[in-house]
């Protein structure tokens, strides 16, 4: 799928005298907070402009900004991955895209735009999923910057980079810089896999997604959102059977909107609109250019400082809230010893002796610091429950009704895996 990267002139012929007047003020001499290892002058410039290879994950709201900043800062070998195509609702902030680009690959259009605008920079796009690539691929980069809107994808890349660390080989440690925004709020952080707190360590900082109890949706709707959930969760499968709902299909949204509106009218509930319907079923996060610019700039600034050692880098979390004045908070997020990705220690959980396997699974899905969808469970000797393949699922299904305490002794360990996550979680179970 990836378009071939086109070099628009090699690096030396594309440069001009004075091109790096601004950046070179930083690279030619250290500042008071610069590490002594900083190699001011030609050496650091040569590394940045001729040797450093950086990967950008996501070519959306943050990704467009990140690519432009990196190119202007002097990174010349940039790779970008994005599986999405351009939608009209991207154009209010994803500034490398125009109306004529709607429907095309974000990664490819963004890469071409940057190469046209900033001479001598090579951007290699990949139109696809990060999961398509293996460790050999990720090993080629010096740094990785993420501008993603998906928790799942972040967990995947985080775990992959942590797994790649080989203590014998310092090159195997790839700094990961992660940014995220929502409305006027955002955060940027630096993760040194196995050294600092990782993405998984901070999973409990995420906002809990709003979930409405099914009985409210079915029996006592009060809010317009309840009517919309009724349309999408209950009515769609009832009416359309196996036909999959596509939240990008305007006809599907229109159908949901009309069904939700009728239900709202029946119950005299106000406020169901097309826009709200779309917001609820697609879980739309409000987004603007300015917040993305701030967070992407912070990410790229950290990448620049790490790549050049020209100044200390962020340790390790920058949080911004722009709703009331300009408020930000910079702090060190601490590693979790029982982090399933970088901690090494089993997570202690205490549950009732009466809990069934099914109840335990429900907890694993819900707990903020775990959040594993469709987990499979085993102990060193036995399969407790497996989601796949079908034969194994069928064979282990009767265990769902059994008590955990019948299958695992007090203090025993359960290994939890999920196909979407490249790591396993060890639970040490105690009973009350």
């Amino acid at each position: 799928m990836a378009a071939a990267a086109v070099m628009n002139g090699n690096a030396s012929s594309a440069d001009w005298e004075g091109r790096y007047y601004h950046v070179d003020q930083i690279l030619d001499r250290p500042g008071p907070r610069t590490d002594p290892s900083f190699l001011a002058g030609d050496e650091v410039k040569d590394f940045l402009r001729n040797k450093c290879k950086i990967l950008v994950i996501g070519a959306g709201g943050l990704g467009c900004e990140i690519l432009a900043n990196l190119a202007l800062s002097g990174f010349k070998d940039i790779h970008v991955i994005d599986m999405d195509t351009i939608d009209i609702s991207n154009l209010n902030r994803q500034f490398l895209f125009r109306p004529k680009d709607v429907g095309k690959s974000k990664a490819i259009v963004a890469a071409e735009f940057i190469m046209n605008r900033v001479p001598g920079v090579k951007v290699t796009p990949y139109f696809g999923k990060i999961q398509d690539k293996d460790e050999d691929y990720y090993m080629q980069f010096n740094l990785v910057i993420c501008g993603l809107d998906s928790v799942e994808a972040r967990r995947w890349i985080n775990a992959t980079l942590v797994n790649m660390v080989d203590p014998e080989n310092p090159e195997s440690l790839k700094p990961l810089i992660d940014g995220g925004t929502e409305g006027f709020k955002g955060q940027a952080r630096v993760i040194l896999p196995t050294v600092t707190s990782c993405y998984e360590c901070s999973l409990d900082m995420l906002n809990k997604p709003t979930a409405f109890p099914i009985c409210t949706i079915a029996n006592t709707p009060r809010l317009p959102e309840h009517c919309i959930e009724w349309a999408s969760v209950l009515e769609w499968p009832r009416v359309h059977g196996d036909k999959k709902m596509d939240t990008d299909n305007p006809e599907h949204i229109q159908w949901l909107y009309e069904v939700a509106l009728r239900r709202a009218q029946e119950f005299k509930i106000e406020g169901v609109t097309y826009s709200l319907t779309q917001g609820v079923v697609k879980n739309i996060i409000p987004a603007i250019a300015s917040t993305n610019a701030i967070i992407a700039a912070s990410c790229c600034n950290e990448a620049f400082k790490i790549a050049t050692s020209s100044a200390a880098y962020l340790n390790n979390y920058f949080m911004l809230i722009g709703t009331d004045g300009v408020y930000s908070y910079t702090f060190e997020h601490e590693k979790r010893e029982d982090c399933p990705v970088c901690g090494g220690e089993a997570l202690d959980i205490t549950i009732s002796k009466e809990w069934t396997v099914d109840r335990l699974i429900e907890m694993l899905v819900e707990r903020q610091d775990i959040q594993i969808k469709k987990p499979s469970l085993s102990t060193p000797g036995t399969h407790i429950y497996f989601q796949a393949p079908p034969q194994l699922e069928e064979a282990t299904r009767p265990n769902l009704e059994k008590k955990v305490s019948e299958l695992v002794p007090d203090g025993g360990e359960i290994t939890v895996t999920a196909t979407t996550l490249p790591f396993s979680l060890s639970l040490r179970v105690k009973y009350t």
Partner: protein
Amino acid sequence: MSHKESQNIEQATTTVTTSQPDDKTRRYDRQLRIWAASGQAALESSRVLVLSSSATSTSILKNLVLPGIGHFSILDATVTTPADAGNNFFLHARESIGKPRAQEAVPLLRELNESVQGEAVFKDVKELLGTEQGRDWLTGFSIVIAHNLDKPTLEELSTLLWSNPNGPPLVAVRSAGFLAEFHIQYHEHCVSQTHSDTAPSLRITRPFPALLEWARSLDLQDMDPTNHGHIPFVVILVKLVDEWRQSHDGNLPKTAAEKKEFKSKILALKIKPDEENFDEAEAQAWRVWSEPAVPSDVQALFALPPLPSTSNAHTPEKHATFHALLDTLAEFTKDPSGPGTLPLSATLPDMKSDTESYVRLQNLYRQWAEVEKNKFKELFKAKHPQLADSANPEEVDTFVKNSHHLRVLRGKQWGAFDKDREAVANSLMMAPRETATHLGLSALTNLLSSDASKVTEDALRSEVQSIVGEGVDLPEELDAAIGEIARAPTADLPNMAAFLGGLVAQEAIKMITEQYVPLNGYCVVDLVDSWTGVIG
């Protein structure tokens, strides 16, 4: 421009009933969820002036053109240098060198959003400041933004804009390498749509008649069990408070023991252990520990002194209605025939309840909120007949709806902080790194006005000392700041430009839309240790 356009978008976002949204609504969908059609309309009728087309300036503009301001002008009398071509994304790299910089930048900014107009003005601001016509032009914008303007010019510009109470706010941005700051100059900024997260009072201890009537009419002992488990907690609490008052001389539960007793009364009403509405009532019992007071932030606005006469300014005309509404609100809370507090909010949180009870409760709140709003409007008309006639009804509605979260900010002229030695000395103690960085940048601005080659650490330190006054101890944080400034005194780094581009545009959007709360003072940025702070 686009009165017509802004109406279109307003209609498109409020009346999508049968058809899908148009292209424009789809394009702006993610931001309309933040500032709605009214914020969008304000943006679309705004005119922004930016002085210089540096990397920072074009980054700021990019983040204003994308969401759809009406018009922008770039005032810049320079031609593109090789350095500009290297750090500015909105130039044609090497091809732009030697050509007027703003003229090169404008088309590349305009292509971000076809509905935005823009122009390059190849003139020097000093020249415009020197003529009547030029000064009129400079004051005719919604907001003026200046990046790295030299000190004498910035002083003259800030004085011009400050002298006119109806003139535009001025955003003055200064950056050098990893350090930067910006200040917004305005006399006053009034916001009713602050989008605060705190919910307004439900007024459970002072229920309006229809709500009290409902609560009193309930016979909890003899009631259908299903209905019993679905009474909204608001009604439960209203009923219990009413009963409590009758047996406690009209008082609310005060002591810890009384509060505990009140809570146990709630739970004692359960007829089944799983009645979640009663659990909710117990969890929400704190709502009845006190009477619904006017929030202290709003109360303070009732006693707001007039703008200081030294600033030589009157209340800006555009705020006349806001102040008249504020005055009416103060009157409303004091009116003996009124609720003794702010008008009731029609917004109800979700709660355990069946549909019918919830919708009934919601309607009661809506109807009574309407009653109090009408009362407010009568008062408004009586106290301020002229303004009540001319005021936009939507502005009045928005004001009443948001009366729990109103904010009025009083600003300062650019540079006033540096002249107030007591304030600077205080700030050095309270926020040493932010103040030190600010002073370092002020010193840089002073030094650059004479000779760029003079920017050394020693020169910066002695300049800082002369700003704060002899005898004031300078914190060690100053070394970190002036060391970085001396390292890169004229560097407009791409990442800093992008960072400021986001921050400044965001504050400009808050100023223009009069939604959310903008910066008051200086925002100082350090991208070595990655922090921001506000002083002054």
